[in-house]
């Protein structure tokens, strides 16, 4: 059992509060992805767990042991950095062996562990090379090897793929996932890339301005975003968010002067309540009798196309359709009720007796 618990974690730099209270529990072997825009505090959170920063308040427990005041090396954690942070003057072998050497392991044991890790990562032929003689993907593998040989209780990944090109990123993403599954090491993975987040995580923690907004499985986050921030952040192209007013006993929303009917009693809020209607671009359907939207731009993506439309100056809509008919100046669309999300306009929070997409606070 190597779980991780964070209790009321706060971090301020001077007067600026970066983390405003994070509680989190990771099960043994779980991969949790922390995702958010830059500046949301996700990296700070990771650095607190690593011990590279000291929390202003709160506790960090690994395996039930309070490590809040411990030095990074005493926490039994390994970290993979964004720019790999390999020691430039050491060979691949020495890079992986360094942490073990410091721990005073006998040479034979070090050799065995490095050999095992390099076999796992396909680095056997590169052990004598220096980091500068390696490609980006190979360096990334060495960085992971350095983490693996330590046999840590916890892996920390700090945007490890952002320095790679798109193709390699997809490949390394798969490799990280396979490795983590195979080694069953509890992992915390920080990224700003929602595709990485969706594909890698057992669960996602979406952060916004130092606050965790939603903690759930990738599917739940996608299907039941907890608020407008998550709704707009996860999913590409982003969810359409249209301001409107609720009416007819909660069975209709008026958006840009047009009433949109909703399935009965899905949304519990008083009539006249200011709401935000959310619908993903791929869920909007073309409907000759639907609401009309003047088309602004059409983007061809190959098999699909994105139509950007705008109505009444402020309400803009993106629609993703599989190679549509010849585009006229105006398209008519409708929003299927089962795909409509409603959020409170004032708080941004999800309105609904929704599924399990409940924010973690």
């Amino acid at each position, binding site marked *: 059992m190597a779980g991780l618990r964070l209790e009321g974690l706060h971090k301020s730099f001077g007067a600026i509060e970066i983390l405003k209270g994070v509680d989190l529990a990771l099960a043994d072997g779980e991969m949790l992805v922390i995702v958010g825009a830059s500046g949301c505090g996700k990296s700070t959170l990771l650095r607190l767990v*690593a011990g590279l920063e000291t929390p202003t308040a709160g506790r960090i427990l690994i395996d039930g042991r309070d490590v809040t005041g411990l030095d990074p090396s005493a926490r039994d954690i390994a970290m993979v950095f964004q720019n790999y942070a390999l020691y430039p003057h050491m060979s691949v072998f020495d890079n992986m062996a*360094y942490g073990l050497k410091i721990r005073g392991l006998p040479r034979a044991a070090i050799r065995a562990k490095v050999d095992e890790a390099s076999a796992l990562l396909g680095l056997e032929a590169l052990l004598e090379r220096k980091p500068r003689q390696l490609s980006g993907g190979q360096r990334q593998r060495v960085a992971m090897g350095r983490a693996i040989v330590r046999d840590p209780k916890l892996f920390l990944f700090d945007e490890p793929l952002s320095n790679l090109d798109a193709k390699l990123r997809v490949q390394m993403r798969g490799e990280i996932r396979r490795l983590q599954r195979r080694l069953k090491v509890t992992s915390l993975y920080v990224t700003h890339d929602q595709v990485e987040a969706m594909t890698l995580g057992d669960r996602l923690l979406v952060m916004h301005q130092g606050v965790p907004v939603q903690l759930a499985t990738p599917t739940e986050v996608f299907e039941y975003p907890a608020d407008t921030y998550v709704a707009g952040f996860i999913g590409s192209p982003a969810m359409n968010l249209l301001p409107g007013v609720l009416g007819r006993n909660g069975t209709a929303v008026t958006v840009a002067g047009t009433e949109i009917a909703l399935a009965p009693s899905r949304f519990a809020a008083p009539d006249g309540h200011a709401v935000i209607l959310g619908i993903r671009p791929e869920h909007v359907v073309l409907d000759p009798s639907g609401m009309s939207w003047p088309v602004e731009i059409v983007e061809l993506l190959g098999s699909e196309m994105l139509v950007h439309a705008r109505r009444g100056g402020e309400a803009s809509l993106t629609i993703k359709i599989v190679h549509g008919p010849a585009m006229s100046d105006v398209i008519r669309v409708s929003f299927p009720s089962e795909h409509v999300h409603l959020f409170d306009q004032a708080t941004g929070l999800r309105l609904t007796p929704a599924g399990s997409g409940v924010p973690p606070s």
Partner: protein
Amino acid sequence: MTGRLIPHAVLVLAILLFALPIWIAVAGSTQDSAVIARGEISLIPRLSGLGVYRDVLLHGSAGAGPVWHALMVSAGMALAIAFGKIALSLPSAYAVTFFRFPFRMTAFWLIFLTLMLPVEVRLIPTFQVMSSLDLINSFTGLTIPLIASATATLLFRQTFLTLPDELVEAARMDGAGPLRFLRDIVIPVSGANIAALFVILFVYGWNQYLWPLLVATDPKYDTVVIGIVKMIGVDTATEWNKVMATAVLALIPPVAVVFLMQHWFVKGLTEGDK
């Protein structure tokens, strides 16, 4: 062709300009002192005059002792200054760069300030300090004041600043303490810079004149630079061939150091070598 002719012409001219005085010294050292004194230096060395090198090395000349001894003093002083400066500035730059402590920047600026006060500027007070410490006419007195300086600290700090933060953090995660990090990561990574600095400092130490002249009056501590000056007599006839031979001998060690370390020297000054 003309496109390449002019640059070459300029280069040849520059080489002549720099090499000619040295060649005159080499050629002059083999000729008769009286001939040189008359200003009739031939540019062709006289092979029979080569014995002068043996002569100055073993016996010196009228005003100064044997040159081999002076060369030893110079070498000792230059090496002590180069190694001393590196040994002193490496930890101080390390402290100023990687550690957070009260008055860190004050410390840094105080070190920086000494850059504006080289030994020549603070000659009298430094001499007083050395004199009250009873270090006049000693090897310690000769080298210590020249060791304390900011140049090396500044250079090392600049090098250390180029090391990415993540490298420091990776080492911390690996469990490397401050001294281990210095030994295993910082020093090997700055190897080229240390070598480059060594070359500069060696030449700096070798060329010292004013301070050795002041602090060491005992001929035992005469450096080769001082030796040359002492050979030039005021009222006695100067043996110019010996002066020139000594100058040539004095030139060899710094040139050798630069030559042997030029690969590292260029690398350390041009590359960040991260």
